[in-house]
């Protein structure tokens, strides 16, 4: 799966995207976040305040308890601030 990061999440992790084989037992976005947070100190820092994370699966905004299903791209970012 491609993981895509934006804004403060991108800066904390230090990369804009990465392609990872997520363990198949991960069912939801929340599961993926917990697993990712254990991958590096940057990931842990980026995901420490889970209430402030927002998500898009295949470029559709979805809540944290959404199933990963067969999505190819998970984006993780802070609340949006355009306009």
């Amino acid at each position, binding site marked *: 799966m491609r993981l*895509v990061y*934006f*804004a*403060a999440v*991108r800066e904390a992790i230090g990369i804009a995207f990465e392609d990872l084989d997520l363990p198949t037992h991960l069912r939801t976005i929340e599961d993926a976040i917990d697993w990712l947070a254990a991958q590096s100190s940057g990931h842990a820092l980026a995901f420490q305040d889970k209430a402030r994370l927002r998500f*898009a699966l295949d*470029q559709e*905004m979805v809540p944290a308890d959404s199933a990963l299903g067969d999505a190819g791209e998970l*984006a993780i*970012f*802070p*609340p*949006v*601030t*355009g*306009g």
Partner: protein
Amino acid sequence: MKRVIVSSEPISAEVALAGLSDLGGGAVSSFTGISRDDGGVTAIELEHYCGMTEASLLRLIDEAFARWALLGAAIVHRVGRVAVGEQVVVVGAASRHRADALEATAFLIDRLKTDAPFWKKEHYSDGTSVWVDAKATDNDRSARWT
């Protein structure tokens, strides 16, 4: 007419709204957002989710067309580094009568603030920079339209 543009070059309301007044309607309404000097801010920087951004803006326009009797609508949004005083976003709508265009314009900018994947960073004159926090008031205004 439906227009969505995401631009890393300076934008102008005149160009963004071009054509909206030629659709046979009696009303064109617009909103222009300008980068403002909030206590030492010299520039803002806008990051976005290329691809999802354009799709989400077009979806807002489609939703506005479904809710109001519109003849046209446009959303033009700047990305990258934007100096204080430059335009960040222009939203416009055209309709036969003013109520549709006015309400659609408010809908488009309110929902853009909460639904479109842009992130804003403020750069200060002392060289520091800070990601802008989402505002609860923006969520409240956006929720009026759901």
